């Protein structure tokens, strides 16, 4: 009986749009859903550093190098806020990282695609960060307080990244034929994976309904995907790039774009680990962690010596 009252009270609080805080009572399933979602998001930030990090040493100008470094550093910072938000739910970062490294926890599949040319730095910023913002803006109002506060800060920086990415594409589209082709090729490769970032169609999405009731999620996958497409198509037109979808056309009645069929086989294959870079990304993360073990041990040992007064 008591449990039912607690759950009732919890749901009422959510319905009143009040935030749930770390010390408040929450159903175990709510806690688990949040840990899964926030840690996935944190892991995506740090795995997402890899495809772009790959271009720091080769950035074509000093200005671009500095912007790219700063952008990736922001992503590391997002990873930090999100791990911290996740820790308020009673799980520590080591455990979360262990789940990533053993393949138990997922991260956004988009980062299992390779960043092959400089134009990919533009396409990732414009499309991948653009899709991420579409997903994340509603999360600024998500029901769990620490998560929503982390998201407010993250969204501000992400929208800046998206503009930077678009600006790279704009510069390329105004450049030589080689540069225009480079931009179009990057769009061709990143378009479909980007619109898959919103997840499966609503009819196939396993976690959606409960998450919407708990106001962790505010809009469905398909709603957000449609919004992203409607926003992005005119941006592509403005810089003379063609969206690689022959079925894309404006639907006057719906006041939205109709678009072609998404290759869900590809999506599920990449989720299952068969994307072009799944193994490489995970190997890089595990290697960084293992190579860093002696450094973390040293920091702990030194801090303990300090605490016990053996070091002045």
């Amino acid at each position: 009986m008591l449990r039912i009252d607690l759950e009732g009270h919890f749901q009422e609080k959510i319905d009143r749009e009040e935030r749930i805080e770390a010390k408040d009572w929450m159903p175990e399933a709510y806690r688990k859903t949040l840990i899964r979602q926030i840690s996935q998001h944190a892991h995506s930030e740090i795995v997402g550093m890899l495809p772009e990090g790959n271009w720091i040493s080769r950035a074509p100008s000093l200005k671009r190098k500095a912007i790219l470094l700063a952008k990736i550093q922001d992503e590391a910072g997002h990873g930090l806020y999100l791990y911290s938000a996740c820790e308020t739910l009673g799980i520590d970062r080591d455990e979360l990282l262990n789940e990533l490294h053993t393949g138990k926890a997922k991260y956004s599949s988009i980062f299992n695609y390779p960043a092959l040319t400089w134009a990919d730095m533009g396409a990732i910023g414009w499309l991948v960060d653009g899709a991420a913002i579409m997903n994340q803006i509603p999360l600024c109002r998500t029901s769990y307080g620490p998560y929503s506060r982390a998201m407010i800060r993250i969204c501000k920086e992400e929208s800046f990244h998206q503009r930077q990415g678009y600006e790279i594409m704009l510069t390329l589209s105004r450049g030589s034929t080689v540069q225009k082709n480079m931009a179009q090729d990057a769009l061709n490769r990143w378009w479909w994976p980007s619109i898959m970032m919103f997840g499966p169609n609503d009819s196939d999405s396993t976690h959606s309904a409960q998450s919407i009731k708990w106001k962790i999620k505010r809009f469905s996958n398909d709603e957000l995907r449609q919004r992203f497409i409607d926003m992005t198509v005119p941006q592509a037109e403005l810089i003379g790039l063609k969206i690689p979808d022959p079925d894309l056309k404006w639907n006057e009645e719906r006041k939205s774009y109709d678009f072609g069929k998404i290759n869900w086989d590809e999506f599920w294959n990449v989720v299952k680990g068969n994307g072009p870079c799944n193994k490489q990304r995970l190997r890089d993360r595990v290697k960084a962690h293992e190579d860093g073990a002696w450094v973390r041990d040293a920091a702990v040992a030194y801090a303990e010596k300090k605490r016990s007064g053996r070091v002045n």
Partner: protein
Amino acid sequence: MNIHSQHKIDYLLYLADTALILGQRLGEWCGHGPVLEQDIAMTNISLDYIGRSRLLYQYIATLTESDEDRLAFLRDEREFKNVLLAEHPNVDFAYTVARQFLLEAFHFPYYSELKNSSDLQLAAIAEKTVKETAYHLKWSAEWMIRLGDGTEISHQKIQTALNELWSFTGELFDPADYETFMLQESIAPDLNSINKSWKEKVQQVISEATLTMPENQWMQSGGKQGIHTEAMGFILTEMQYMQRSYPGLTW
């Protein structure tokens, strides 16, 4: 171009190239650090160095009718004047920390002095640089101490790194012709006084870190004259790839 301006340009290139190449090296850590906080710290320091190199290249560009990207991406290895220590491979976190500490312990007194340069543009750049350098020095000295006085393994690793990198520190205090010229003009600081501060700081941190001062040894040099280690060609190959493959474009 008269000899005075050539010396000045060479001197500025020495400062700018050292900043760029060290920034490039530190950037390699991005996404691969031992813990997220230190990944961010190293990227942050990298960003400061890239920023510093840009200020210096932009200044050089005003004297040579060039631009920062031509200076960074279209010069050949023999034209780069960075010290050898800056181009040393990261190897592992211990080498990276030791390389950083040895250079920051130099840069802090160096740029503090450079604030008094008779060249006002350079003095202004030094003013900004000194602030960042104070933080870099603190970060790298703290890690020297933490690793030195951490575990047996970390102690051994940082001692090994320190011993190996030591042979690259002599070059910092061995003035190239252009530095001597710039000292005479009161543009560059006197390396003797910098050397004294450097030694004091290094000894203090090594002692606190429970490490042993490396023995006096043969010192490597050449970077300031453009004679580099084998690592340098690979750094430039990667760094200059876009500008070399697609000449004359705007990115």
